[in-house]
């Protein structure tokens, strides 16, 4: 199969992830959207790597995996702290900051 198909798939996944971040009001779902975007980028990197016939893109994907794991730790930590404080993780609910 032509690797360009994977790039198209990656773009679609990226768009779905971006839409989830921008449209969903639940912090966890929005965060899942971010993760989907990162993984879409990984897929694109690996596909391009295959197209170029070298491994730079695959190595980059490993870095992204590691960073994404660190990001999950920090992100879930913050979301749990918010949930403990106010028993909800809706992004509409916290509205103390305005203007």
């Amino acid at each position: 199969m032509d690797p360009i198909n994977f790039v198209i798939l990656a773009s679609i996944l990226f768009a779905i992830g971006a839409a989830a971040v921008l449209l969903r009001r639940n912090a966890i779902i929005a965060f899942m959207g971010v993760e989907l975007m990162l993984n879409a980028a990984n897929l694109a990197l690996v596909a391009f790597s295959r197209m170029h016939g070298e491994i730079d893109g695959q190595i980059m994907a490993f870095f992204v995996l590691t960073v994404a794991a660190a990001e999950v730790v920090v992100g879930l930590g913050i979301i749990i702290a918010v949930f403990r404080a106010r028993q909800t993780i809706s992004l509409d609910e916290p509205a103390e900051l305005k203007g």
Partner: protein
Amino acid sequence: MSFTTPEIAWAPLTPLLIVLGASAVAILVESFVRSPETRRRTQLVLSLVALVGAAGAAVVQWATLDGAGTVVLDGMLTVDRQSLAWQVLILVFGTLGTLLFASRTRAGEEAFTPLGASAPGSSDETLARRKGLQVTEVFPLALVAVGGMMLFTSVTDLIFLFVALEVFSLPLYVLVALARRRRFLSHEGALKYFLLGAFSSAILLFGAAFLYGATGSTSYAGVAAGISSSTGTDALILAGAVMVVVGLLFKIGAVPFHSWTPDAYQGAPTPVTAFMGAATKAAATAALLRVMYAALYGLNWELSWLFWVVAIASMLLGTVVALVQTELKRMLAYSSIAHAGFILVAFAGLPDTALSALPFYLASYGLATMGAFAVITQVRERSDEGTVLGEATRLGQWAGLGKRSPWLAGAMALFLLSFAGIPLTAGFVGKFVAFSAAISSGAWPLVLVAVIASAAAAFFYVRLIVLMFLTDVPEGQEDAIEIDYSPLARTVVAVTAVLVLLLGIVPGPVLSAFENAGVLLLGAGG
């Protein structure tokens, strides 16, 4: 398949290794030193020694640099005068920020919550407070953030750009969430900062993937070569370039990628706001400069519309919305958005002079920012019973501050005048060099908008000065404000005030130093 060990030139990495090594040691201190008070002192000394030592190492390197600079790690990292200048700048902000992190009120209260995991108002929190717990993790977190920012200013590879971005962003998200008071606001600011920050770094990464796909290389030099020889991949290159630039504009805080700024600035503990406001903007500007000049220079014409639109939108929106703010930290946040616009003015047309103008602009802006937020930590509310509460950040509460504490109010006025760009302050020289760089590339309409926006912005800075000096303390409110005294925070105020004045009156030496830094080591690596 055989692997060859890469040759690594360790010496040019010394400042980075000092800071990142110290952060690793600081994490060990966190685990092995049990008494909170000893731990705090150890961490403070360790951080300051590391930051000052790294700054010294960077200065020594600057002095002994032979030729244009060195390429390290197969072109992943470039150490030239430009990157050393930014590194020193970030280390200065880091040192001042660490002093603010460690400052305490007269009653011995830090700016950070005693236990980050406890829910606000819970019995856990009360217990943690009574036991005298302290979140001394803020010091290693700040060190990691400083190390990441230093990396961010020197990287010349798209993989490393993304990694460095996350290395300095992740600790900042945590720091924003750790305020002692108004913890709901702090959590909310951190959540928004985190989601939008992660969103923007994903956009940057996807853009980097596109650039890699179109040019077959992740190094800036390879991307630049790929752009000039590209055939049939123009759309892919342009989409990738726009996404990388947008990811960086998020970190600079320019409109329409600014929506995290006011919330994160207001919610974060004020010392964190000071550090983040000064250092993040500097690091992101440095990275954007290098990306634009070393990798995407061939797309200068195609991308200039982006800088025009974003610069004008940031200047106008930042200024107009700051005019109607009644909360001080929020007002400064919108002012920082307007300043992001002023920074981007120098990017229009990519003149060579921007490489020496922007470090100066960011130095003047960052020092004034740190000073202004340090003053804010000193002005506190007092309850009817006389206990000192959190910071007084409503504008009305600052009425008559000049009579209560002339020096503090005077320093604040100096910082505000520097933001406004009044002559004899560093802000004036900064704006002058940045705008003349833009004019040299023919972007005079943009400079015209910038000058008008600066004049309008002066209104809300001067309004606060009038409030401090020409308004009386409201009737019956005489005891509502407490002027706190923390030696560390006062030191930061004094140092930044002196530097803002010095850079405004005798900018020559620093300007000529940055002129030497205005040359990038291009085309190296692979």
